[in-house]
């Protein structure tokens, strides 16, 4: 897993609520047996017309760039497919900001070095407004300080992240490494259970 400490970047706004993982990566693209290449089909059915040409109205086709995706409430609901987190990360996004994340998505994101930043509804609103006014608005996410701020304004908010997950993200250390280190304790537990 890649390490994450701080990020300063422009944003890609997606002001929709309840964006489900079927939209993030439709089921028909789940046939791969590796983790790579899912970014090409990120938001496939919103991003491309039926004939495969880009849908000019969709935000990813408007020439914006940025490593921060800003989305409406309840992002990542629906299917537990981890491919959703892979697709976003593979596309080049490092942080997703929303006022609420679905549980499994949040977990999946953290397991893949993608940082979910949960902010208040009012901060999210200000963020959307700032990006709408000026697409070159930069946002700074500091994992160390657990803060997100909008460059050039005094808008700043803290976000919560579990101490263990924070440590893993900063170190680029994953859960499996940790669990494998606990195998002896797991065996003891099994003996006790029987």
């Amino acid at each position, binding site marked *: 897993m890649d390490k994450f400490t701080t990020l300063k970047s422009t944003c890609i706004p997606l*002001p*929709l*609520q*309840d964006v*489900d993982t*079927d*939209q993030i990566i*439709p*089921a*028909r693209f*789940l*046939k*791969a*047996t*590796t*983790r790579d290449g899912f970014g090409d089909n990120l938001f496939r*059915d919103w991003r491309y017309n*039926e004939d495969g040409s880009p849908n000019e109205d969709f935000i990813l086709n408007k020439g914006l760039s940025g490593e921060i995706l800003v989305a*409406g*409430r*309840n992002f990542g*609901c*629906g*299917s*537990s*497919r*981890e*491919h959703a*987190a892979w697709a976003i990360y593979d596309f080049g996004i490092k942080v997703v900001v929303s006022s*609420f994340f*679905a*549980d*499994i998505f949040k*977990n*999946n994101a953290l*397991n*893949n070095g993608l940082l979910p930043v949960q902010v208040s509804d009012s901060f999210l609103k200000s963020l959307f407004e700032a990006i709408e006014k000026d697409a070159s608005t930069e946002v700074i996410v500091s994992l160390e300080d657990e803060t997100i701020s909008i460059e050039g304004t005094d808008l700043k908010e803290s976000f919560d992240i*579990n*101490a*263990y*997950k924070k440590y893993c993200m900063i170190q680029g250390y*994953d*859960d*499996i490494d*940790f*669990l*494998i280190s*606990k*195998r002896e*304790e*797991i065996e003891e*537990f*099994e003996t006790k*259970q029987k």
Partner: protein
Amino acid sequence: MQPKTLFDKIWDNHVVHEIENGPQVVYIDRHFIHEVTSPQAFAGLKKRGIGVFRPKQTIATADHNVPTQDQHLPIKDALSKHQVDTLINNCDEFGVELYGLGHPYQGIVHVIGPELGITQPGMTIVCGDSHTSTHGAFGNIAFGIGTSEVEQVLATQCVLQKKPKTMKIQVDGELKNGVLSKDIILYVISKISTSGGTGHFVEFCGTAIENLSMEGRMTICNMSIEMGARGGMIAPDNTTFDYIKGREFAPKGAEWEAKLAEWKALKTDPDANFDTEHYFKAEDIEPMITYGTNPGMGIGVTGNIPALNGDISIKKSLEYMALEGGSQLLGKKIDYVFIGSCTNSRIEDLRLVAELVKGKKKADHVNAMIVPGSKQVEKQAIEEGIDKVLLAAGFELRQPGCSACLGMNEDKVPKGKYCISTSNRNFEGRQGPGARTMLASPLTAAAAALTGHITDVRELLN
């Protein structure tokens, strides 16, 4: 001792290790895998050079991506074939039992676990699929996980989890004629929304729940995830024990007696506290149907679609469905009917459908597909003559798999077509790009197939 919920009892019993200010290491009793969310996990093990820690506690099947016709022939779609073959090779290499295509136990992962007696009370169960919550109907903790977590379980038989909050949903009273457990859960989700259960694990209780069969309870727990909950569970009782007894992998003899005594104690203590509680009355529930693009957008079948209120997500949703805010759904012409998925593809569902359509004919313009949840359901349906009843009524009984629930195989609903589906998700494109899905119970779906439009099934029952 402090009174505890059923959830807390089972959870606490499975905590191996606690990280300060972090998640807990939770031991997993049973792990189900399938072809779509496991290849990258096995690839991870290979990369780390380790094996499966407890191969006997993992069970595999092929369901998401398999054809539902001519299963004896090689899979035509090259990518699907590669994925299913990868599962076969991985199970072989790592010593995991596989109920793959052609095996008498093959089927949708959440249908086969319970019917084989693998799913039991008091356990922790996970699978790389969100509807793992289905198994909770047997009084255990069952939840969906991502592929990284599948790898965790394969490597250590544990997952790292933050303990969720607890929620009680109590439904009391008698269900009205024509109202099924699917209607209960669609009703509950329409009331508390698709994020109403987030961060929680739900225990369903109350007389309306107790009176349900195991199939009915599984439908409820299956869709608990659609309100954002981590999972749902129902305390085990005699209905549960009767269902499990005698099944292939159920405990036998003295072991059965010992387990039964243990299982009988699996209850929430009378004074235990839940973080959140909701109460509903069974009498208030009508046959339900969804009009929008998430499972919380449901109404009673005779009701009106809510009027537009300026919310752009709802507007987008109704545009996708080509429906008008404020209008009625009753009488609306439909094109497809899909009866299947881990929500409603069990023998009880097929029996209900067969009973309703017996001696009748489906509407000519409707394409009706019935996909049993497993080989065993298929076999039983044939033994009971259900296949003949369905065929005579113009329905097609397919071979088991997830099928049009997620449209990964060729069973898709074409763009712009309306499909009444007994599955659990009506998201945009879920049943195929541009497909318009309306979720309902097997009875409401079958009624629509007969008349060709959205129908109040109670009119056909009387």
